[in-house]
């Protein structure tokens, strides 16, 4: 290897001081400066309180009462108590049902279906469909809950009116189904938008070569579309699972009832922490939710890494 012999008029610097070589010439230092405000805010207003919550979870802290004045560290008692209580497991199971039903199945399937149906359409129909779906997403939950109470009402509810079955108590006889459908309605927009973008990235030629080979609609989805958008599916699953796990809106519809049949973990925490004032217990359950989310995330990431 012939190293350059430096000509006398332009001596090479003795130590090679390299400058940043990323696309914009940011370099680590400037990149840190760019990321600093966000990371600072996150550290102060997210990480710090989150760690505090984790600390609370090992105390018997309450919003009021003697324990508010003088909280004691009780170790993992809150966790043990939660883990041995049937109510917690009931809630966990309901949450799993809720997340699976409304996010993983409802929002993903419906969002994908709409994105798929609208994939190469333009014009007013597409705008109408997307507009309505997104409307359901951006309306404030305080308003939306009223809409659904009005929809599902036993006597004058629009749904019963339309179906001609007055008196059918959706929220009482099918409470979980009701909030699953509700949350599907509410959250489909995100999946729809994400899959809309993802489907735009599926090369049409791949679909068409499958079609030419005679593949049916389902075969095209299986062989061409899903393998292509797997990354998007998983990002989407990750985010909406996370959001659905923490979603409190169903409380406004059913208040966790009837008989705790819709008392998902977010509602359980609300009742413990806000209504019951048991902040230590609430914090412990929050921490458990975090753990479950972690497991879910790792599971998704595994799925993603596999076969790629």
């Amino acid at each position: 290897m012939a190293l350059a012999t430096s000509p006398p008029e332009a001596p090479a610097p003795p130590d090679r001081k390299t400058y940043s070589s990323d696309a914009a010439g940011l370099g680590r230092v400037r990149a840190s400066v760019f990321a600093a405000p966000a990371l600072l805010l996150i550290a102060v207003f997210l990480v710090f309180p989150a760690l505090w919550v984790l600390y609370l979870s090992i105390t018997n802290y309450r919003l009021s009462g003697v324990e508010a004045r003088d909280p004691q560290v009780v170790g993992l008692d809150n966790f043990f108590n939660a883990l041995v209580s049937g109510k917690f497991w009931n809630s966990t199971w309901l949450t799993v049902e809720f997340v699976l039903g409304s996010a993983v199945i409802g929002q993903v399937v419906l969002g994908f279906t709409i994105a798929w149906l609208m994939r190469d359409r333009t014009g007013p129909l597409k705008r109408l469909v997307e507009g309505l779906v997104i409307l359901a997403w951006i309306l404030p939950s305080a308003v939306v809950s009223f809409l659904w109470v009005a929809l599902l009402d036993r006597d004058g509810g629009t749904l019963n009116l339309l179906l001609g079955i007055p008196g059918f108590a959706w929220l009482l006889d099918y409470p979980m189904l009701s909030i699953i459908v509700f949350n599907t309605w509410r959250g489909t927009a995100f999946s729809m938008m994400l899959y809309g973008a993802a489907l735009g990235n599926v090369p049409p030629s791949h679909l068409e070569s499958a079609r030419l080979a005679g593949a049916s609609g389902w075969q095209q989805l299986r062989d061409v579309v899903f393998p292509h958008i797997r990354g998007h599916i998983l990002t989407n699953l990750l985010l909406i699972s996370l959001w659905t796990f923490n979603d409190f809106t169903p409380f406004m519809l059913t208040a966790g009832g009837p008989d705790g049949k819709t008392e998902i973990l977010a509602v359980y925490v609300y009742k413990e922490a806000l209504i019951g004032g048991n902040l230590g217990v609430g914090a412990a359950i929050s921490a458990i939710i975090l753990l479950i989310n972690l497991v879910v995330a790792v599971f998704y990431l595994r799925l993603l890494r596999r076969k790629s």
Partner: protein
Amino acid sequence: MSPRRVLGRIGFYTLIAVVLAFFSVPLLWLATAPFTSDPTYEVSLPDFTLANFRAILEHPYALGSLYNSLILAVGTALLVVLFAALAAYALSRVRIPGRDGLLYALLLLSSIITGTAAMVPIYQLAVELNLIDTHLGVILILTGGLLPAAIFMLKDFMDTTPKSYEESARVFGASPLQIVRHVVVPLVRPGLATIAVWAIANVWGNFLMPYLLFSSDPENQPAAVIIYTLYTEGGQANLQLLSTFGLLYSVPVVLMYLFVSKKYGFRFHGGIKR
């Protein structure tokens, strides 16, 4: 047209009709109740009274609360978009060891902050930092909670934009900040718009943080809090006011969405880069 295609068409339009119905039927109540003089949960042909609107206009906090919501939402959205864009850009363009792990960890932690249990730490933090009763405090706290997901989504956007634009600006001598301002921001504008609307929608509906942090003056409270005042002492909803206010409360977000979607188009990029 082949019969199979006709069947396909029929199937398609049936499905679309079902979807349309599913998403529009729940909205009916919001369209009728505010114009009905004595609304119940029943959707019926309204008598087209504007009395409810008159009543809500007389409400001392209703309009002001919408303005407060606007400040909080726009303020938070601006901060989220600005900080998330800078951070996402840096994370997308410069390899930092453990970057993905960090993002996932933050994303997960952000879930704890949305829960009720975090209110005590956040409240006390706000007290210590003197952020009680300020819009800034609410904005900063909400921003902190939304940033991880925003960075996560925006980074996907940034990852998919070609680097040659930046490199070309760089060869011409543009500084990193100039590159961000002149090139990156305009390029990822649909992404920024998406994140902005997402942030706005989130803040718009958030009750607990503003309620807790604005302790001394309902003049500062956003609509999400004021809508809760439209109940009686026994906890009964005043449907006249509630439906009407609900409609007014919804209109700004809808307008915001229409504006953004018209101006920038809506699109999401996704996919975790391996």
